[in-house]
């Protein structure tokens, strides 16, 4: 097909039959964004910037309610950052392990291992949530949080007594387990796409396996960043699992051993009753909008970084 002339009839039919599918999927995003903006406007009109700069959440059927999203927003950011900080080294170690440490002769074990990790992305998040609530959070409270508080309590991050295992840190740790497979998949794919000639060149210099992996990871740094961003986006949006372990309390998440809130958990927990309170629906929709924007930005940045993994030989 040349770009100057008209499309041949066959191509035109193909164009008109496929265009709706593409337009619809893009259109849904646009419509959704517009709708979220539309529904959050009333709350923004009444409360203004206070919605995201204050931290008091006291809905009230009568009198003056107050809706401050600051704590859930911080909670979302902090738990997601914790998740990425933990998941990134885990994912990189796993890539190094499956691609380099497992011997080449164990090809089937390697691919089984890799498939298993990548299959973890398909586990329903409620499963992670239940496990987090029943196993992870009591375990962490007794074996990690108590000692952290006792011995490192002078650090503000660990300065509150861990009464329950449901804390912002638990949410972060659970999220890290959930996003590790995503980061692993992104990084592993790029790792294996590095042309063989570079791999040979590194080894020909007499690099050890560790040095080899370090140089290769350097070469695919944009992919690692992309994985981290995509993982961050997933962590920020994750709802069910987080709602089960985050504690759902309006404590400032600046001490990560205290129960707190995330935006997604707030929406999930409060939406059912929201119509009872003035403007609460609109405030929660604003929360959704914030998550939408956060997710889109981190994914677009991630994809942009991924596109930067180029090998000009």
């Amino acid at each position, binding site marked *: 097909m040349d770009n100057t002339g008209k499309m041949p009839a066959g191509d035109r039919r193909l164009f008109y039959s496929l265009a709706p599918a593409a337009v619809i999927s893009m259109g849904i995003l646009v419509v959704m964004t517009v709708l979220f903006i539309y529904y959050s406007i009333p709350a923004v009109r009444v409360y203004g910037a206070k919605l995201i700069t204050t931290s008091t959440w006291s809905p009230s059927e009568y009198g003056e309610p107050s809706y401050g999203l600051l704590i859930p927003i911080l909670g979302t950011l902090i738990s997601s950052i914790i998740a990425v900080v933990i998941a990134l080294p885990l994912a990189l170690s796993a890539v190094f392990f499956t691609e380099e440490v497992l011997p*080449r002769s164990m*090809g089937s074990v390697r691919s089984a291992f890799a498939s298993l990790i990548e299959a973890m992305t398909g586990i329903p998040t409620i499963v992670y949530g239940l496990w987090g609530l029943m196993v992870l959070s009591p375990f962490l409270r007794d074996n990690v949080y108590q000692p952290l508080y006792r011995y490192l309590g002078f650090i503000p991050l660990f300065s509150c007594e861990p009464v329950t295992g449901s804390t912002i840190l638990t949410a972060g740790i659970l999220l890290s387990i959930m996003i590790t497979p995503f980061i692993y998949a992104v990084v592993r794919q790029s790792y294996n796409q590095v*042309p*063989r*000639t*570079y*791999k*040979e*060149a*590194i*080894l*020909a*210099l*007499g*690099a*050890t396996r560790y*040095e080899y992996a370090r*140089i290769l990871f*350097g*070469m695919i*740094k944009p992919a690692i960043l992309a994985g981290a961003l995509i993982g961050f986006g997933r962590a920020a949006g994750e709802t069910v699992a987080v709602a089960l372990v985050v504690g759902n309390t309006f404590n400032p998440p600046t001490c990560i051993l205290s129960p707190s809130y995330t935006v997604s958990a707030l929406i999930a927990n409060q939406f059912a009753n929201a119509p009872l309170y003035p403007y609460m629906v609109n405030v929660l929709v604003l929360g959704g909008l914030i998550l939408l924007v956060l997710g889109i930005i981190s994914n677009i940045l991630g994809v942009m970084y991924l596109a930067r993994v*180029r*090998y*000009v*030989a």
Partner: protein
Amino acid sequence: MDLVEVRVSRLNVWIGGKHILKDVYLKASPGSVTAVMGPSGSGKSTLIRVINRLIDLVPGARVEGEVLLGGINALREDPYIVRRLTGMVFQEPNPFPHMTIYDNVAIGPKLHGLARSRRELDSIVEWALKKAHLWDEVKDRLHDYPYQLSGGQKQRLSLARALALKPRVLLLDEPTANIDPVSTTKIERSIMEYAKEAMATVLIVTHTPQQAARISDQILFIYQGRVVEYGPTRELVLHPKNSLTRKFLGGEV
């Protein structure tokens, strides 16, 4: 300066059951250039990769025979030691795209702790780039990334990266196959100079008899994995004994 002679005897290589190299032998002395010549698919690259154990990366490869690098049995020794002793330049120019020109040359010395100070590292980098006849073209942009370089410059950078470790054995796998004539001449000069000055043992894979004639002291002609003819360059080029060699030199194989 230790001299490392390369001695290959009764070398057989199978890859996935296919017999790639059959009873290959050669003896390359320090200070000389050996050209490994033959049509594509004759096993030349495999031979080079056995010497520095990159063959280990090839799934399903089986190696039998003996490869001696000086006193070291290359097939039994730790591959890191073997590769530390050897340097390699590949067919495709492959400077690391995420490292600056400077870092590409400095990476080897850094990995092996050859420089005790930044100044020492600077001088190694300058030395290697000069040896690769690239210094004048890049000295003002050492901290740029290699993507702006031409193919020939990239290949000279790859050569400088290998030379920076002062390898006792230098292996080159058709280094000028896709390179412009000016860079080709410079690379050929570098190779000959390095062999003489450092008393290094150089093996270069080439599929052009002209290149072999220009730069080598001896030629190993292999065809379908077997040594067809082996001898001093002048003798082999002027008076080939084997009819296959004659055909190859005449451009018929």
